[in-house]
């Protein structure tokens, strides 16, 4: 695994704000990880992409913004969890909201993790680095004793 995602795996970023999408791309580049980032800009597009994927083509991780046009992030998350093919996809919710109410709701809907996008760029890079580590932890093959 050598600290990188398998080259045939990608991260799906569902983000409608082009500034945030670009910053996320830069932040991933800053961490030095070899990530392939696919960006879709609304919830409906995210679902139609995921539903069209063959199992082997499914992204390794979905980064999901909550405030999206058409279908919002919560609806997308619900739909991902309702569909057998995508049910076990790791989903990290990305949002600006730090409201505890939102946090509880998102976990209740089945997010694997929740990350608040910080204003400060360096902290944003740090958050993205954590996402990479999180992905590694999720996909590490079990170690044999």
């Amino acid at each position, binding site marked *: 695994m050598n600290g990188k995602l398998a080259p045939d795996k990608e991260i799906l970023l569902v983000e409608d704000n082009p500034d945030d999408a670009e*910053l996320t791309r830069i932040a991933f580049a800053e961490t030095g990880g070899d990530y392939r980032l696919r960006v879709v800009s609304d919830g409906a597009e995210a679902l139609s992409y995921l539903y069209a994927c063959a199992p082997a083509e499914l992204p390794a991780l979905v980064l999901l913004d909550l405030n999206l046009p058409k279908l919002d992030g919560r609806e997308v998350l619900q739909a991902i969890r309702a569909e057998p093919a995508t049910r076990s996809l790791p989903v990290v919710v990305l949002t*600006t909201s730090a409201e505890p109410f939102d946090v509880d709701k998102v976990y209740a809907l089945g997010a694997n993790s929740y990350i608040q996008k910080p204003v400060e760029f*360096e902290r944003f890079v740090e958050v993205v680095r954590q996402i990479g580590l999180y992905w590694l932890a999720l996909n590490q093959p079990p170690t044999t004793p």
Partner: protein
Amino acid sequence: MPPQQAATQDEARFRLAMASAGIGMAIVSLQGEWVDVNPALCRMFGYGEGELIGRRVHAISHPDDLPLTAQLFERLHSGEADALDAEKRYIRKDGSTIDVLLNTALMRGAGGAPLYFISQFRDVTAQRAAERALRELNETLEQRVRERTAEVEAAHRRLEAFTHGVSHDLRAPLRAIDGFAAQLDRQAGAALDAQAREQLSRIRNASARMGALIDSLLELARIGRAELRPANVDVSLLAEWVAAELQDAQPQRPARVRVQPGLDAIGDERLLKALLSQLLRNAWQFSAACERVEIDVEGARAADGLHFVVRDRGIGFDMAYAGKLFEPFQRLHGSEQGAGHGIGLTIAQQAAARHGGTIRAEAGPGPGASFHVALRDLALPAQERARDNTETRAA
């Protein structure tokens, strides 16, 4: 005294009593005509004495109450009662209706023959109006409660939407400003002159300040509407925790924070942490000019809650502006003296207010400021109280 003379004297006394009485009094003939009326009665009905005497009482009675009057006279005549009370309506000279409590007695002569009625009139119009209003108010109360509840809920939803908007939509552009300024600095920083780099750093500092301001506004909104979760709270521990956070953020800063152990309150831990955070941060920031930050937290239990004081040795403030300290966005010092965005103390006060408490600021006499917090214990939920009792017994 001959009987005739005694009777005259009695009558004189009676007339004097009538004239000076505060309530309306009248002598009414058996035919229902005014024979004598006192000034209070004239004032009550708005007529002069001359306009009433000789006229029938019926003339100024409310038409709907005429049967009641007839019945009253009949019962007195028949000897069923000596005196009767009734509530009647009359029409004043100006046309308005008044509610009157009436007491009428039939006076009889030596042989028992009826002579005349003596009536007393008490104006209860204002009282009845108030009662009617109250009754109407009660009848519409439920309706109004429903309306007000709907209004409050709508206001709450608007506030939620506003908070949500602030939280998401104001932060996103800030992230872009800071993120792309950081990129610019990285990619072109070396090519920029010192002034341009300084300006870039100003952009980033400004966006960081605005981010902090948004966070504080959200915290203020949250503290105002958060559901209270009362529990036993170790305020000393919270203060120590906040002090450790402040020191962590500035590890090089010489500081001594002394917290009296054993300060306990029954309150909402999150809100009390926010309160202590704001007060201690305030104390810490305004000690910027001091060689060393010195903060003391001490207090005592009062009958209904915890009273404590946070004291610093910083630059203090002018007592003339003490009232402004807790107003949002009011600052008594510039940012070079350590001032933040001016919401911190409002947050602290709001947290105290949610505990039925207050915060009072005092400057001097020496250097520094002290913030006196009086908290009232919240009521513990039933299961918490039960657990408390068990613990006490176990101990």
